[in-house]
């Protein structure tokens, strides 16, 4: 058993690599990458779609509107598109040197040595030696930090363009997920607060779902075929057929205080920071809950149906098992039979499903977060896709992949522990 799980964990490595390569390739194929997006931003100005133009922006750029080559090179370098895909992938992993702190140095015809200011009053000397460039520090020794290379694309006939840069190994393996293009912050910094938000809603929502569904499922199973069973079925299916985000939107309008009744706050994870910081701990707890009620309703309303039905069916199945007959035959009381024996076994399928649910919880729900103006994980991931924010997209997908891999193993473990008949080899 233990060897099985060790093997499973080791097998995560090729899976992880495979997944990330797949994602990386898909990302490259998407039309209109970050480079194009930046150009669009710069060149197009306002491209609005509206019934009549609101005319906030405009379209006009100085003169020819063909961006200067050197600037394009700088952009390409920034986004890493000056390198082949496999290198970009390896850089992203962190096992290929990442070039940082670029400087361009141009050698005019005949020149073989140049000084370059590298900031903070320091200078480096670049010497052309055939096809390669040597970087010398102020003592005249070959620099260990700075490197240089000839930029063949940028070089003109007799002018040789070189780039001076430092390298470092930093990628996902060193915990560096890169810097977001749209937030301009390290990916981890962008993710951390959103992750917390999604965990909060996910866990609370999950807890609520279990608290409602298990008792309800039991009751329905015990009263199978009764009016209660029927009515509760109808109710949970009404809930199931209303998309959570739609309900959320309606509730916000009705109860948010803008148009009808002023009961709940209008979206947000909690009160604005300036107010939040002035609150006592108790007030903060209350404020947090007050903000969470509507989103949680929207979040969990759709999940009641599935889990309740699962619980009910599972219990029904167990009640008709031989061991229950035996228990009855032995004269045990109904309560004891149902509550101690049947229900304990009925929770198994629900418990083993937890692994899968965790994944869903983490991924968040784009639509609900959008409706309630909550900065969660789902909205971040979705928006990153639309914005072609590759570092965020990759980080998001990687986290989802890792969680799913772990969750799969957890499910197996749960299954093996719960059901002794299942053996893994």
């Amino acid at each position, binding site marked *: 058993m233990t060897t099985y799980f060790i093997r499973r964990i080791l097998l995560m490595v090729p899976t992880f690599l495979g997944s990330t390569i797949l994602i990386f390739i898909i990302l490259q194929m*998407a*039309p*209109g990458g970050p480079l*194009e*997006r930046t*150009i669009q*931003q710069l*060149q*197009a*100005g*306002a*491209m*609005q*779609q*509206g*019934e*009549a*133009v*609101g*005319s*906030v*922006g*405009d*379209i*006009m*750029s*100085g*003169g*020819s*509107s*063909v*961006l*200067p080559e*050197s*600037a*394009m090179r700088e*952009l390409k370098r920034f986004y890493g598109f000056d390198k082949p895909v496999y290198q970009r992938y390896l850089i992203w992993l962190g096992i290929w040197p990442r070039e940082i702190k*670029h400087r*361009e140095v141009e050698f005019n015809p005949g020149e073989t040595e140049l000084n370059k200011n590298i*900031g903070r009053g320091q200078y480096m000397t670049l010497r052309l030696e055939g096809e390669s460039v040597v970087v010398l520090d102020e003592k005249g020794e070959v620099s260990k930090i700075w490197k240089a290379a000839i930029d063949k694309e940028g070089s003109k006939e007799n002018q040789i363009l070189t780039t001076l840069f430092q390298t470092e190994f930093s990628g996902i393996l060193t915990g560096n997920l890169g810097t977001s*293009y*749209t*937030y*301009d*912050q390290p990916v981890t910094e962008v993710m951390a607060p959103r992750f917390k938000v999604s965990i909060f809603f996910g866990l609370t929502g999950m807890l609520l779902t279990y608290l409602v569904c298990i008792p309800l499922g039991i009751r329905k199973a015990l009263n199978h075929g009764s009016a209660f069973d029927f009515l509760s079925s109808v109710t949970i299916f009404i809930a199931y057929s209303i998309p959570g985000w739609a309900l959320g939107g309606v509730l916000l*309008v009705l109860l*948010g*205080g803008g*148009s009808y009744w002023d009961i709940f706050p*209008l*979206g947000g994870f909690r009160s*604005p920071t300036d107010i939040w910081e002035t609150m006592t701990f108790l007030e903060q707890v209350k404020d947090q809950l007050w903000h969470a009620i509507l989103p949680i309703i929207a979040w969990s309303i759709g999940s009641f149906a599935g889990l309740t039905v699962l619980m009910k069916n599972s219990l029904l199945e167990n009640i008709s098992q031989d061991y229950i007959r035996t228990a009855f035959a032995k004269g045990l009381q109904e309560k004891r039979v149902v509550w101690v024996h049947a229900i304990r076994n009925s929770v198994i399928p629900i418990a083993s499903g937890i692994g899968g649910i965790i994944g869903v919880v983490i991924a968040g729900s784009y639509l609900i977060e*959008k*409706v*309630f*103006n909550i*900065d969660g994980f789902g909205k971040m991931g979705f928006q990153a896709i*639309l*914005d*072609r924010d590759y570092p965020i997209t990759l980080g998001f997908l990687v986290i989802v992949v890792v969680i799913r891999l772990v969750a799969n193993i957890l499910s197996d473990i749960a299954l093996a522990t719960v059901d002794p008949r299942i053996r893994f080899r």
Partner: protein
Amino acid sequence: MKRIQIVVMLILVVSLVFWSCGGGDKQAAETGDSSSDNFTRDMTTPAEEGGYGFEKLADALGYVTYEMPPEEQIYFGDPRAKKGGTFRHITSRFPATMRTEGQNANYIENNTISGLCYEGLINTHPLTLEFIPALASHWKISDDKKKFWFRINPDARWSDGREVIAEDVVATWDLHMDETILAPSDQLTYGKFERPVIEGKYIVSVVSKDLSWRNILYFGGSMVILPSYYLNQVDGSEYLKEYQFKMLPGTGPYEIKEEDIINQESFTLTRRLDYWAKNDLMAKYSNNFDKIKFIVVKDNLPLMFEKFKKGEADFFTVAQARVWVEETDFDAVTNGWIQKKKVYSEKPAGTSGYAFNMRKWPFDDKRVRMAVTYLYNREKMNEEMYYREYSMMNSLYSGSIYENPNNEKVTYNPEKAVKLLQEAGYTKRNEDGWLVHEDGRVLSFELAIQKGSDYMVTPVQQMLKEYGVDMQIKYEDGNSSWKNLMDRNFTIYMQSWGGLVFPNPETSLKSSLADEKNTNNISGFKNARVDELCEEYDVTFSQARRVEIIREIDGIYSDIHPAAWGIARNYQRILYWDKFGYPEYMVNRFTGDYRSAFTLWWFEPAKEAALKAAMANNTQLPISEVDVMYWPEYLKQVNSN
């Protein structure tokens, strides 16, 4: 995406007038009240180098001096204005950075910050668009119109107390020219100039490489000056990092304190009490709010509206006709607590409609383009869907002086369309009802739209369908759509561009750009006469002649017809809680959008008290006239004189 993205420099005019109140002149020193004089003056710099006393030499040296006529005071801020209060505004995006330059800084939020916290050398007059002082109190243009001199006002101060000097201008230019700030269009704009030269402590000059009347606007107007003291300590990439969420000291009336930047939630501008030009009459009665708070609600228009209705924001711009007509009759409005205004201005309406790709079938044929235009029944859509809120657009410069009055006023005309299509060879219909060309091609093409615009295009699809033109619609995400557009991989495209106060036809109409990818000449427009006119336009310093040129271009464009124009709106629909005072005209003449409120409006405590009382007692407040026609009437008056 409905993101409103902006090319900074272009906004030049927008931002110019926007700051319109930043000007500073010797008046500051003369207003006596010395509360502003808590800084030391540099009396050692000789007048020749721009020091005190320069104003006496200015005329002799050929410098322009501007004095504001007292009757124009109102356009620089209403003397009734009071200082104080907070203006809360909801915005749909938290800016990726608080920088005003460099990567990711060309969004509208950054532009707003730039306009309120920093200043350029000169400015444009809010009424006449002539140059007025900002950081520079005087300026001079050489006879060949290629060299400009600016004399910086020695009173001008950074928020850290340092003086504004010529070196700041050079450092700012250097920053823009640094490729590592990852804003390539900056190098394009500022690359039009040689490196500025320090002529004296307060005097700076610059030479432009080509002759163009716009150059002084680019350099003097759209470039906000940043402090050299800090810029000299960083290079481009360090600037990007260091000032990501930290403000460089500015010269403008507002600043953003670091603790007021709450990532992804809100940011607040605070009025500076030590603003150097605060006693200048051109600035005295504007920028009245103590704080301007931007609350972020991302991509969620209904929630923004709810928040406004609840009172969490003070101001709301209504973009959709339906919302304006059907959903602004709630209690607060009928009680007069929220005022409803339709403010007309001469803000350019921009261009919207369907752009044809003239490079390929079927729109390489003008008859087909015209036929589609005649079949596009925008009047009906305005009537049935937009509550008659809009007017029809028949020019690239709809509603402005640049509009060519002789452009054909296209109206729905199916008979003409059918005739044109027949002439073009689309004579038969197949069994599905689509028109077929004599050579067997079915008149069918594809339109890519983004989520949310389908209601604007499906009626057009039906209109075309009735006459046998098959327009298929598909959803595409914004980036793919843009990519296809720039690769000219489209047949027809629904576009809307914002308008410019000073049009720049070259970038979208020049023949040389027609066959190049990644340019704004989307339709593939080629016309020798327009090329000639564009060249002439750049070197024409007379505004009257420029208007003629643009009108001629507009006429040619309308005739070639690379686009079926849509509907136009020459006003702003706004709602606000009734606690503000504002000048009679409400918004600026040429840049009149919500941002005028930041500078020109003020908080009126008496009104707020009345509002509070009315809300507590559930009583009515007076409801003012919805239509604000100040600018149209002003124009009428000007024209009649």
